């Protein structure tokens, strides 16, 4: 599969995980990501892997916990309501420092909502929907190829940090087909041993995977270690892309599907000489704040516009990075509605003309 293949985002995620050495999938069906478990149920047996359709998302994340405890590369995938059910498990994975790949193909909420695409689980993903102080690396791909690349990356980063990594897509990214090229396959047998994995002592020292620290002093120490790890992630794992920001007076900040829609819109504006650029966070946690900071410090940028398929979530991270130096506007669609490039154009134009001061969509 080094050649270019046309593939659905959902299937590409599955194949990318397998390429990254993941041989265990535990999940439960939910639209719009059913092609992931379906693909895995076909493909994993071919590569000596195991697919288990769990009885629920809750069971799935806990199977991942057990599988990761044994030292294997394991994954689960779901969409919004199912991801909510995994929050306790994600907190446990972080607490016990277990690696895992988690994929969320967001659909509109709240509640049962709709099955159409959205980005309204941003807060849940980057601030932590579960209890306690923890962080997961969150990637926001914008194309099927990037789904492949970031999924592949995620599996490795998860092992590196002994921490779950979340790939945050949406219904569109999961359902669409685009040409992709896959990276080289990792042989799980060739991966380094995990001395901490609980797969039987086999002559070695006893291993324990645990997140309980009854004595608060110990629990705080544990939290200090976790925070040190998160600091390291924050220092080294930020990823972003800029498009035409050098001389931009207004910079649109958007991630994932929304970012590519904005790009189309901005290209049209650029053709007409409007000085706009795009800042696309790729890592959503850690949010690439310093890069945005540098852009603002550059002095050209006079305002930022956050565009989301949600009612205003990422915009908070943009505001945190902007620290009041330039106005931060917001435009959002919700409930499965996908903004069109023309909307973005209109909104940008209105902003530049001073018309739509932070009126903000929705």
């Amino acid at each position, binding site marked *: 599969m080094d050649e270019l293949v046309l593939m659905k985002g959902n299937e590409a995620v599955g194949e990318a995980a397998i390429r990254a050495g993941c041989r265990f999938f535990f999940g439960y069906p939910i639209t719009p990501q059913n092609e992931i478990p379906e693909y895995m149920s076909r493909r994993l047996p071919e590569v000596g892997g195991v697919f288990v359709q769990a009885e629920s998302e809750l069971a799935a994340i806990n199977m991942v916990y*057990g599988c990761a405890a044994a030292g294997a590369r394991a994954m689960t995938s779901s969409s919004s309501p199912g991801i909510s059910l995994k929050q*306790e498990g994600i907190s446990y994975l972080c607490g016990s420092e277990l690696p895992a790949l988690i994929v969320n193909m967001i659909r509109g909420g709240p509640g049962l909502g709709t099955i159409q695409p959205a980005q309204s689980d941003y807060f849940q993903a980057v601030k932590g929907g579960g209890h306690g102080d923890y962080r997961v690396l969150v990637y926001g791909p914008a194309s099927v190829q990037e789904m492949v690349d970031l999924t592949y990356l995620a599996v490795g980063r998860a092992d590196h940090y002994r921490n779950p990594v979340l790939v945050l897509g949406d219904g569109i990214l999961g359902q669409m087909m685009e040409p992709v090229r896959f990276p080289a396959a990792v042989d799980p047998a060739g991966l380094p041993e995990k001395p901490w994995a609980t797969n*039987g002592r086999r002559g070695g020292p006893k291993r324990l995977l*645990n997140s309980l620290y009854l004595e608060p002093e110990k629990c705080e120490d544990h939290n200090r270690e976790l925070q040190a790890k998160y600091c390291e992630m924050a220092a080294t794992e930020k990823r972003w892309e800029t498009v035409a920001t050098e001389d931009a007076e207004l910079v649109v900040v958007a991630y994932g599907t929304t970012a590519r829609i904005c790009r189309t819109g901005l290209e049209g504006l650029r053709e007409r000489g409007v000085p706009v650029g795009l800042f696309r966070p790729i890592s959503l946690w850690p949010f690439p704040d310093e890069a945005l900071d540098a852009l603002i410090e550059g002095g050209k940028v006079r305002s930022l516009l956050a565009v989301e398929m949600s009612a205003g979530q990422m915009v908070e991270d943009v505001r945190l990075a902007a620290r009041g130096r330039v106005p931060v506007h917001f435009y959002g669609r919700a409930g499965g509605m996908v903004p069109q490039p023309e909307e973005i154009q209109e909104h940008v134009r209105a902003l530049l003309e001073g018309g739509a001061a932070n009126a903000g969509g929705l």
Partner: protein
Amino acid sequence: MRVAFERPSALADIPTHYCPGCTHGIAHRLVAETLEELKVFDRAVGIAPVGCSVLAYNYFDCDMVQAAHGRAPAVATGLKRARPDAVVFTYQGDGDLASIGMAELVHAAARGECITVVFINNAIYGMTGGQMAPTTLLGQHTSTSPAGREPGREGFPIRVCELLERVRGVAYLARIPLTSPANVARARSSVRKAFQTQLEGKGFALVELLSSCPTGWGMPPREALRWVDEVMTEYYPPGEFRTEPGDPGGGPAGKRGSQP
């Protein structure tokens, strides 16, 4: 003189946090002895639940994983699927296993996961201070059934073995009270069979150990054991429910069995 009885080496030589007379200690020992006897200690992985036995991970000297409340069978599934040669057991209380963890239990059983479940039924939530469990008997007073469990209000106690007996995928199923040396010996043999079932790859195995919670029940330990024998075993009859895999069948009681 030779040693007639000593601590199994599969148990760490530290005092437990259990209350005086709590039978968790006996259950721990039975599991540890079995791991040694079957010579599987070195590839054993235990899953500790949330409950009084959460710290079981400190006592069992094999590899241990602490699981979220009720999810031990799911954690065990993930682990066993990744390492089929590991000997995987969960150790769960009745709240953990039969209340919050009911779905994970029934489904691990139906998948016929080759794991061993050691189920401590003490008819109460010990760790959190004596609340009603799904196994709390009718009339029993607990801190959340203060007027005594009454079916119209708090529903009926769940019999786990009777329930699982109807699940295909189960290969071994037994219930034994930990109330006397003779019963403890029976329990030990059942624990052994439950592990052997796993070693033979036959499917899901569970031993329910009728246990006491002197603290939660507000009884001296010896009285608590008498209560197990005299009251609990009435509703929870001891014995082996399943010794082999197979289709448990079951069918309609009514007259509609025939098909047009």
